[in-house]
């Protein structure tokens, strides 16, 4: 059930009404039942997998907290973490691991199950439970926190299940922390008009980003990415940049909707994006892009690794960056393209780390505006190019696109001047100009939502002005919105 489908509207209205009708102590039950229903709407039997993860993490953490002997604590922790990661590996990576082993055996002329035919067909057809990567990461973080002793085990299984299954965030995050989320569930809920209108505004803003900006960009980026052989360099460079914008509109749009929905139930979710286009280094970009996931990786992979290897000095950081971003790439899927995407981030982060002092000294001698513009261009070009691997169906496709991208720049400049119609794209040049307009609107809107003072100024304006703005966006959504069945890009992770 997608947030912008009519069925979701009815589902949400029902849940919202029920949430406000039942006594306070039952409200979490409404959210839990709604979340289970929401999950089962798409995959009725798959809900068993998140339930197994919930029980494993909750019972595991309770046992760890109760156990006094360090050896037993450790054993329970590794058993719990093993089950959680085992489920993730089974659904997401086992096929590729077995396939690679099979190919390796074939290459070494050893007897293999896969020789001649496609091996493990049943595993290939296995459906990955929705939101699996998010659920495993949140339950794993909870188990680690309790094992480390930084946070206590939570006594309420119902709250814990609601935390992991909470329907606005279940399929694509943000990656929440149990100890920040559950106290909100346990707190007394009181209807707050300001918070509720904020939630509706935030949801509608995400709705605009997904159904207008991302959906309008989709056929354009598809035209380029599905037929790179028909385009020359400058078009493909533009395509990579447009995909960056599409991914941002899609994913941050989803996050805005999730945050807005949670606000309507009095719950605050973590911000996942903080104006990433303002980043002037890759290091800064990862502090602004998919924040909840990068924070998870830095806290549970990078920091322990780098701190334990700190004898190696700066090389401990470089090594840990490579391991962290290799895993971050793999988190998206067992595909060479995601590995390359992760490793590219690691290469640039390491270069930035090793050249930190030189860059800072150089920046002091240059005008600040020049430093910012150069930094912006560098991050935009680098991240767009790395996203070619993220978007491409295969490594070969990505390489073919990149080769073409840097091959045909001079030849295609005339095409750009002439504004030739884009082949494989049904829209005309006015559609493209409209998309540019939507992108500009999106950036202005995000700047607005990231400054409390601007929101306050807006709310202080006359009612008629505010409603004119709302109506303007509603008309844009009604006119240009695409309400197809295209799911959010991050739903597949």
């Amino acid at each position, binding site marked *: 059930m997608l947030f912008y489908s009519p069925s979701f509207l009815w589902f949400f209205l029902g849940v919202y009404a029920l949430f406000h009708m039942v006594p306070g102590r039952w409200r979490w039950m409404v959210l839990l039942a709604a979340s289970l229903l929401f999950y089962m709407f798409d995959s009725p039997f798959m809900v068993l997998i998140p339930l197994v993860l919930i029980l494993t993490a909750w019972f595991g953490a309770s046992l760890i907290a109760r156990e006094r002997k360090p050896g037993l604590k450790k054993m329970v922790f590794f058993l719990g973490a093993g089950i959680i990661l085992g489920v993730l590996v089974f659904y997401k990576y086992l096929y590729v691991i077995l396939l690679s082993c099979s190919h390796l055996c074939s290459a070494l002329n050893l007897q293999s199950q896969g020789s001649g035919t496609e091996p493990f067909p049943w595993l290939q057809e296995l459906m990955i439970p929705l939101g699996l990567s998010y659920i495993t990461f949140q339950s794993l973080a909870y188990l680690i926190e309790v094992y*480390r002793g*930084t946070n206590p085990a939570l006594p309420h299984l119902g709250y814990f299940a609601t935390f992991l299954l909470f329907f606005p965030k279940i399929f694509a995050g943000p990656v929440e922390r149990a100890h920040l989320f559950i106290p909100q569930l346990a707190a007394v809920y009181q209807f707050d008009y300001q918070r509720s209108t904020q939630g509706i505004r935030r949801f509608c803003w995400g709705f605009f980003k997904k159904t207008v900006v991302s959906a309008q960009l989709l056929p354009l980026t598809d035209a380029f990415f599905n037929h790179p052989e028909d385009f020359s360099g400058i078009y493909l460079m533009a395509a990579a940049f447009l995909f960056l914008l599409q991914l941002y509109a899609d994913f941050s749009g989803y996050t805005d909707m999730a945050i807005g929905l949670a606000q309507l139930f009095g719950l605050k979710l973590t911000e996942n994006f903080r104006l990433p286009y303002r980043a002037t280094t890759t*290091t800064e970009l990862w*502090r602004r892009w998919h924040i909840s996931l990068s924070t998870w990786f*830095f806290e549970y992979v*990078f*920091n*322990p690794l*780098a*701190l*334990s290897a*700190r004898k190696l*000095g*700066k090389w*401990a*950081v470089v090594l*840990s*960056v490579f391991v962290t971003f290799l895993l971050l790439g793999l988190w998206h899927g067992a595909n060479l393209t995601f590995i390359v995407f992760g490793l590219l981030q690691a290469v640039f*982060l390491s270069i930035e*780390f090793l050249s*930190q*002092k030189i860059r*800072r*000294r150089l920046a002091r001698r240059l005008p600040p505006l020049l430093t910012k513009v150069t930094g912006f261009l560098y991050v935009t070009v680098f991240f767009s190019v790395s996203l070619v691997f993220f978007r491409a169906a295969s490594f070969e496709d990505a390489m073919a696109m990149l080769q073409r991208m840097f091959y045909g720049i001079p030849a295609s400049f005339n095409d750009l001047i002439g504004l030739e119609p884009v082949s494989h794209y049904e829209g005309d040049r006015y559609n493209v100009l409209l998309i540019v307009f939507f992108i500009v609107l999106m950036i202005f809107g995000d700047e607005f939502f990231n400054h409390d003072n601007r929101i306050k100024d807006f709310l202080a304006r006359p009612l008629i002005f505010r409603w004119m703005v709302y109506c303007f966006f509603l008309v844009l959504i009604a006119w240009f919105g695409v309400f197809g069945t295209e799911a959010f890009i991050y739903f597949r992770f």
Partner: protein
Amino acid sequence: MNRDEILSDLRMIMEDVFDCTDFDLSEQTTAAEIEAWDSLSHIRLVVAIERHFQIKFSSMDFRYWNKVGDIVTSVVEKGTKAG
């Protein structure tokens, strides 16, 4: 060493590690308030603190570092144990 002296030494170490001087430092300061203090430079900072005070932090120490004051506390504890 008392807490103020440790804080003063920390400032000196941070200026060297972060290669900047334009930041305010108190026991309440967090990493988010110093632009150059990110996850990557944090490791260099830990190594520099250990070297300067000739101490060795354990993995448990890092878990409770939320602000500069927590680092000062760790240094005080390690110093006491060492001395």
